[in-house]
């Protein structure tokens, strides 16, 4: 049985796993974006706060994913919870950092004009500053998503959803009938999905970034 036959044979299970994989990554990215933007907004005006938030998020990223999962399993148990927590933590760094960079990069004259013509503090943030930082935030989300696609594979170690289970069982059963097919399908599947999602980001960028600030 070659890879294609394997995929055709197990299509039901594989497509479900692929769907779960993407769904987990996308949901975690969105969650991390909400968190990351809130953190970014909270700290971007203070240099110390910005440095602290970036350093903290960087530290999380230096922990190997296996180790982080191992640390989280005792707290959240096996399954989706641990996966979500791990993925969100990893996605935070690029998003928090880009939010801070994006907000700090807004021309002070533009913010001043916004205040000066009578926009409220929230109005300035939501209608001007975040809108101008959005391309940077989106770039952070894009990096985060790519990273999570790979890390989500490892999350199968904690019995998380997705294509990781294919890779893991392929490796665990090395030498048996379909082990190579399993590992290959999982890996190639993740790569294809990652490329597809990247395409989606290009589209989202086109649709949501004003032509006035698009590069």
């Amino acid at each position, binding site marked *: 049985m070659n890879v294609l036959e394997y995929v055709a044979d197990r299509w039901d299970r594989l497509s479900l796993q692929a769907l779960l994989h993407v769904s987990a990554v996308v949901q975690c990215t969105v969650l991390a974006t909400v968190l990351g933007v809130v953190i970014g907004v909270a700290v971007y005006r203070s240099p110390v706060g910005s440095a602290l938030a970036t350093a903290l998020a960087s530290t999380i990223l230096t922990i190997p994913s296996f180790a982080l999962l191992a640390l989280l399993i005792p707290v959240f148990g096996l399954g989706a919870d641990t996966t979500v927590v791990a993925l969100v933590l990893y996605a935070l760094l690029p998003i928090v950092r880009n939010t801070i960079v994006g907000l700090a990069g807004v021309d002070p004259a533009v913010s001043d004009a916004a205040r*000066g013509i*009578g926009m409220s503090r929230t109005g300035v943030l939501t209608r001007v500053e975040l809108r101008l930082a959005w391309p940077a935030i989106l770039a952070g989300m894009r990096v985060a998503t790519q990273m999570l696609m790979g890390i989500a594979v490892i999350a199968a170690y904690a019995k998380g959803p997705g294509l990781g289970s294919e890779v893991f069982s392929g490796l665990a059963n090395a030498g048996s009938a379909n082990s190579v097919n399993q590992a290959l399908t999982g890996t190639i599947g993740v790569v294809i999905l990652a490329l597809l999602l990247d395409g989606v980001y290009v589209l989202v960028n086109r649709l949501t970034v*004003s032509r006035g600030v698009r590069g």
Partner: protein
Amino acid sequence: MAEKGSEIRLDHVTKRYPGQKVAAVDDFSMVVPAGQIVVFVGPSGCGKTTTMRMINRLIEPTSGTITIGGEDALRIDPDELRRRVGYAIQQAGLFPHFTVAQNIGVVPGLLGWDKKKVDARVEEMMDLVGLDPGEFAGRFPRQLSGGQQQRVGVARALAADPPVLLMDEPFGAVDPITRGHLQDELLRLQGELHKTIVFVTHDFDEAVKLGDRIAVLGDRSTILQYDTPDAILANPADDTVAGFVGAGASLKALTLLRVRDVELGTAVTARVDAQPSTVDIDGERFVLVLDQRDRPLRWVHQNELRHASSLAGIGRPVQDSVTLQSTLRDALEAMVNEGGRAIVTGSRGEYVGTLDLTTVTEVVQRLRASA
């Protein structure tokens, strides 16, 4: 519909930043008369911008009172207040992600106008500052030149028809020629709108050109002299003011006089579609060729006229012209560029007359005699 200006009163206004011994603005009192342009001029860091920003409370005064049209500005919600006070700054501070129309429509939108009214107002404003709505409404700020951005900045500041306008070096970042045009336009607008304008600059020439009154400010925003431009030029209060006025006061005084204030000469003119043989030269050496809408095109010498079969394409193109709102200094400049008479045009660019050096010299002599 335009709302005329209201009087601004600053009474013993002081701004003291925490941890600093000297106040940034110390006991500043001034009345800005309704419908006039008052220019704050002074060296960098003298507190002129701080003073201006206290009027719309981008900076909160430490003590003192500010009233706009009799109403206590410190008792109004700051955001509400700012929607009623136009604000234009250097480099315009336009929102780069908004189109020109969206930028201009921000304040009416904040005030809750319905969309139709906002759209109509945006179009009106673009006409007012000389930007064709059809061409520019959908553009983004980065697709505009510096001068066009400033126009949009002014249009945005005026969009909600505020009685008071604060302008912080709004023309500081554009080239001198564009700056001159923008200044002329501001004066034209003010002629129609009669807003109360507080204008901050460090350029004394700009102050002289624009101000109904000028406040020369020193350290901690102390008022060194607050008077009309000609009074300050003729009679500076002290050495600091005199230093600021600088050399060449009589040339500067020319910036106080407008082309419309002096008697214009006339040139022999001919429409571009006229037959050269029918042009009555009337003893002059040159004929000014106008286009169908009476805008000046070229100077044609009588010799050329005799041999030409048509007025199109002959002669020397008009290099420079001035409007009725231009200062005599601009006119002098145009004369030098043109090598003789300066052509004066009206509001639509149509020919209205000419101005020559003799007229300007006479004006200078009269000024000297009266000073």
